[in-house]
């Protein structure tokens, strides 16, 4: 329990839930969605509709009457396809029967991974800026999030020095995400090796959220589990939301050492039972036949990234080049505004929605997150408006 006066607590609600601040995105969402004509660079999901193949596979499954529960850990065929995919792309050998669980989005996988490994008071290192859920979900699992900041001086990569400084006797695990939401940073195999050394030295587990693994633009993604000595320490989290434009289907998965995965399946079984079958059927189709569609979407993100990096730099926002995911994280420090002031002014004056960097935790202040998962027309118009806004400051 941190920084909360027990005197003002609502006795009906748990102390844990009251200690968690409401999502910073929420406020902007409410503001932005109440306005008409907003160009949104605030979305964290693909602008593509799920390719027809996957939709068709799911419709056909429904027609054939696939409307039931599946095995708790997921359809055996889907787990086999996931295992083949991880082997093919990252040279990882997971046994589909014991080392893979299909979840309701990567979100559930993160949750049950933390619940499977944490005892009350255990610390988890959260590398920030990061996806907004990690720290709260650590708290919900009874753990204590300890944040380590990355910043533009290290291109938003985790440095071994900063990492090791935060490790204590109670540290159980570290959670991070590369390619990163919100910065678009990725880490190379070499850089991950240096992090791995610290992991071994302090005997930690790693939750590696690789949901953006397919969305890299300059080089192929290196999976953390493939780093020497890390296979048995890594819980690899991924899912179908981003690469296959399947956010609404709620299908994700975790792969890892059998003891951890079996523990996760226990929680999954008692709380969720299983992921929805229609989504699992679509996911099978995605892995079997959806790679070309995925490649086309990635190519389109790449073109937009190229455009946006140059366009934002040209109008005076210093921007670290994102190598993966579909976000960029330009610095707005030169304006003298806080990220919230900047984002709020931008939406009020020019109707462009971006997310203030401070909601992503330590290291995020002074930046805004812009998603380029939107059409070229919208991006061009957004750049025009941002320029006008900057000129007005």
């Amino acid at each position, binding site marked *: 329990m941190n920084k909360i006066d027990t005197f003002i607590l609502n006795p009906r609600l748990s102390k844990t839930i009251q200690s968690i601040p409401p999502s910073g995105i929420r406020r902007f969402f409410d503001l932005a969605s109440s306005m008409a004509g907003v160009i949104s660079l605030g*979305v964290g999901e693909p*602008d593509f509709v799920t390719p027809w193949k996957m939709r068709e596979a799911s419709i056909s499954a429904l027609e054939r009457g696939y409307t039931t529960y599946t095995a708790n850990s997921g359809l055996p065929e889907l787990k086999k396809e996931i295992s083949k995919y991880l082997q093919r792309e990252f040279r990882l050998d997971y046994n589909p029967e014991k080392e893979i669980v299909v979840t309701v989005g990567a979100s559930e996988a993160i949750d049950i991974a933390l619940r499977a490994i944490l005892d009350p008071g255990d610390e988890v290192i959260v590398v920030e800026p990061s996806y*907004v859920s990690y720290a709260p979900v650590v708290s919900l699992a009874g753990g204590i999030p300890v944040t380590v900041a990355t910043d533009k001086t290290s291109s938003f990569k985790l440095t071994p020095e900063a990492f090791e400084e935060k490790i204590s006797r109670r540290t159980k695990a570290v959670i991070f995400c590369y390619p990163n*939401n919100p910065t678009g940073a990725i880490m190379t195999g070499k850089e991950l090796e240096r992090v791995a050394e610290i992991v071994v030295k302090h005997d930690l587990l790693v939750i590696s959220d690789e949901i953006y693994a397919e969305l890299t633009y300059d080089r192929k993604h290196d999976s953390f589990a493939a780093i020497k000595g890390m296979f048995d320490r890594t819980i690899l989290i991924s899912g179908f939301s981003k690469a296959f434009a399947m956010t609404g289907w709620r299908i994700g998965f975790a792969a890892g050492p059998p003891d951890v995965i079996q523990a996760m399946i226990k929680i999954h079984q008692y709380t969720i039972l299983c992921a929805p079958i229609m989504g699992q059927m679509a996911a099978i189709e995605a892995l079997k036949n959806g790679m070309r569609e995925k490649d086309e979407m990635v190519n389109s993100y790449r073109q937009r990234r*190229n*455009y946006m990096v140059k*366009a934002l730099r040209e109008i005076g926002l210093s921007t670290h080049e994102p190598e993966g995911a579909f976000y960029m994280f330009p610095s707005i420090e030169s304006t003298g505004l806080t990220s919230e002031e900047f984002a709020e002014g931008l939406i009020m004056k020019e109707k462009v*929605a971006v997310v203030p960097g401070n909601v992503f935790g330590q290291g995020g202040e002074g930046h805004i997150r812009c998603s380029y998962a939107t059409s*070229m027309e919208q991006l*061009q118009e957004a750049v025009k408006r941002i320029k006008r806004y900057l000129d007005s400051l």
Partner: protein
Amino acid sequence: MEKGKIKELLRILEENSRLEPQVLSEMLDLPLDEVKFTVEKLEQSGIILKYSSIINWDKVEENDHITAMIDVKVTPKREVGFDDIARRIYRFPEVKSVYLMSGAYDLSVVIEGVTMKEVAQFVSEKLSTLDSVISTTTHFILKKYKHDGVIFDDREDDKRMVVTP
């Protein structure tokens, strides 16, 4: 420009021909001059034939634009085969496209007219009177659902929330 990039450029232009060279050069991460030069080359060599828009005429008020697809059977001529008659047909300005087909007929001719009468006149007076034309079967398009890769009846708008994780 290397082949892969040229294909990528063509795909972008096919999707949206209004993007300016400056933007194209940024999207492709190539120098502006190279992009301009390549586009010119592609135009000159007849790879880029035309920049056009796809119009949903059904949405235009008082529209009586109609499209007909005509199956044409012809007797091919010695030496020139079907090319000669195809050329005769495609030079008519009302003809939108001409394809040589395998199967039940030889040429597929798409024509656009402002009125039904114009189409009828074209078929009866110009097309069927051509020497090698044996028969024609005219089909009118009643409704366009999808044309050139664009779905007409359910343009999907952005259903996403304005801000999400």
